[in-house]
């Protein structure tokens, strides 16, 4: 339990320094916005991301509790605080981690209408729902919960570590419409997942004995790839890195996106990101537990010299077998949906774009964005309103207010600046929690450096 709490703590601690990509979406024409919508408009001739520093992002969040609820220094004991958290959470609460590091990225203008971009990034994406029943059983046992059915279906987690090679194209098909697409090759270094489990554990009063224990309709499927090779855990970190460089389990995915100008000032955009899968065929170890088992105790038959304990083992293994296999399986990537409406207004200015073409832009914009990501239990949503300001054609800022599963008042801010050809951007959200980040459920960070050429 300590280890579990420590891991939770670590994740929540990291939470204080992570990012929200809604701020980045369609912000300042940054190259990284193409990873959120390949159909966004790009105005420069070519770009090169600073290797390893062009896009660093992480988003780590939790629902149901925050770090300070467990570790704040107050008069409550740690036991009381953990009990309070366990009472507070439910099976819909989760811990989530997403980190991306762009190893390299670049792009170039193919013609006046077409921009091609490509790159490679590594990603860690994990979500684990809090199995309240299992945590209660571990923490308190079954004695106080006679006749309660502890659900095994709450056990849901998914972890992916993978490298992604991608290439995309953004094409202006008319004055009003820009379409984009991106093809991705995933190389999974590690996948752990279990979903769609079922079953209950119940202790009740028995007829033949004081208690009877039921494991009913158990169906657990724990899948892994990249973790175990030849019956041994892969402990060499270089193996994971190699496997993320096309050496692992491969998959493919696509991104779609568009931008549509209803008027010069009113714009719609939308995208579907990471619609893809990884087919796991290497270093697989799956464990299936299927069946039901009832235990009412050991029935004595006196002076029999029976080996009762061994006799229990047989039916248990027969009725509730743990079957390991190395069957290949397919894991879907968490597809994301973005949609946005943006209204530009204020002073109208011009800026030089590729090949010294002048393009008009408004210094202010506001709008709304909807973000959704497909997660094992259900879709997760975030609704963002934003205001964007261009102080000059080299300095832009964006402020957002996001309502999501973590909070109703997540305020974020992003700044993008360009000095000579060097662009720097930084994004931070949940600003209201910066004075006490330990009480935040979700604070995020993103930054990067690019070289942009007109």
């Amino acid at each position: 339990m300590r280890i579990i709490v420590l891991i939770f703590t670590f994740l929540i601690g990291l939470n204080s320094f992570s990012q929200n990509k809604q701020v980045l979406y369609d912000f300042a024409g940054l190259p990284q916005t193409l990873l959120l919508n390949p159909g966004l408009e790009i105005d420069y001739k070519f770009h090169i991301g600073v290797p390893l520093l062009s896009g660093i992002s992480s988003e780590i969040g939790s629902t149901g509790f925050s770090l300070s609820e467990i570790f704040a220094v107050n008069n409550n004991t740690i036991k009381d605080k953990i009990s309070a958290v366990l009472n507070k959470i439910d099976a819909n609460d989760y811990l989530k981690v997403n980190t991306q590091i762009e190893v390299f990225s670049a792009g170039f203008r193919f013609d006046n209408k077409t921009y091609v971009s490509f790159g490679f990034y590594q990603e860690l994406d994990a979500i684990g729902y809090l199995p309240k029943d299992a945590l209660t059983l571990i923490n308190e046992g079954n004695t106080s919960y006679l006749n309660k059915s502890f659900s095994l279906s709450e056990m849901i987690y998914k972890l992916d570590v993978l490298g992604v090679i991608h290439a995309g194209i953004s094409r202006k098909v008319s004055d009003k419409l820009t379409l984009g697409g991106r093809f991705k090759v995933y190389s999974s270094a590690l996948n752990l997942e279990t979903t769609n489990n079922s079953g209950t554990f119940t202790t009740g009063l028995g007829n033949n004995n004081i208690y009877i224990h039921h494991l009913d309709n158990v169906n657990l499927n724990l899948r892994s790839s990249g973790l175990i090779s030849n019956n041994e855990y892969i402990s060499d970190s270089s193996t994971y890195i190699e496997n993320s460089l096309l050496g692992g389990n491969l998959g493919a995915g696509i991104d779609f996106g568009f931008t549509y100008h209803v008027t010069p000032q009113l714009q719609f955009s939308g995208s579907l990101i990471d619609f893809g899968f990884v087919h796991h065929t290497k270093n697989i170890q799956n464990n299936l537990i299927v069946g039901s088992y009832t235990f009412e105790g050991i029935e004595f038959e006196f002076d029999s010299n029976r080996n009762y304990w061994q006799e229990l083992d047989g039916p248990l293994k027969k009725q509730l077998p743990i079957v390991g296999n190395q069957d290949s399986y397919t894991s879907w990537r968490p597809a994301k949906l973005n949609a946005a409406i943006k209204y530009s207004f204020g002073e109208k200015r011009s800026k030089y774009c590729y090949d010294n073409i002048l393009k008009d832009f408004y210094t202010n914009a506001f709008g709304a964005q909807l973000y959704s990501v497909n997660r094992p239990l259900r879709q997760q949503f975030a609704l963002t309103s934003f205001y964007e300001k261009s102080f000059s054609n080299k300095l832009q800022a964006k402020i957002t207010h996001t309502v999501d599963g973590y909070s109703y008042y997540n305020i974020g801010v992003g700044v993008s600046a360009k000095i000579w050809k060097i662009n720097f951007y930084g994004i931070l959200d949940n600003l209201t929690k910066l004075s006490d980040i330990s009480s935040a459920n979700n604070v995020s960070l993103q930054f990067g450096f690019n070289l942009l050429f007109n």
Partner: protein
Amino acid sequence: MNLLKIYSTAIITIFFLSCSQPLDFEQLEEYTIKPSISSSLVFFSIDASSFNTIISGIPTSTEVNETTDFKLLNNSFIKQNLVQLDFNFEIKNEFNRVFLLDVNLLDSESNTIHKLFEGFEISGNTLRISEEVLLIIEDFPQVVNFTKIQFIIGLKDTTVTLDASNLSKIECKSSLVIHL
């Protein structure tokens, strides 16, 4: 590794730019899980025939004896964290005779390490006897090594055998609560 350093540096920088109320992570050292795990143990129902035998052609009263492995405690985590064991027994005696019950905890070598009951009297015509034996491990540290449990039950008065045609039974149910 360089990537990790860069990333860590950025994160730590943000950390120092932000604020947090005082947190004490060492509290976790004080935290131990304290579950109470209830488990069924042994149960049986025996009739008159079990207590009679014929020796040299003469009906003789006897006692019955049975032992089973019970290895729930045979786990290093449980051994290290065990605080208390609660043994619960529910006994029904339909005979009009008094029985004596021994319940022993044995180690893996079948040595008795603790006697839960020694000569416990089960009165006749008793429909329900409930008994609880609590063992605090601090007082009985050897009990953590219990991996077998033995029941011995016999007539108190062995001079008079049970009537073999007697349809009465003696029943026993038991459970164990493991407090960590």
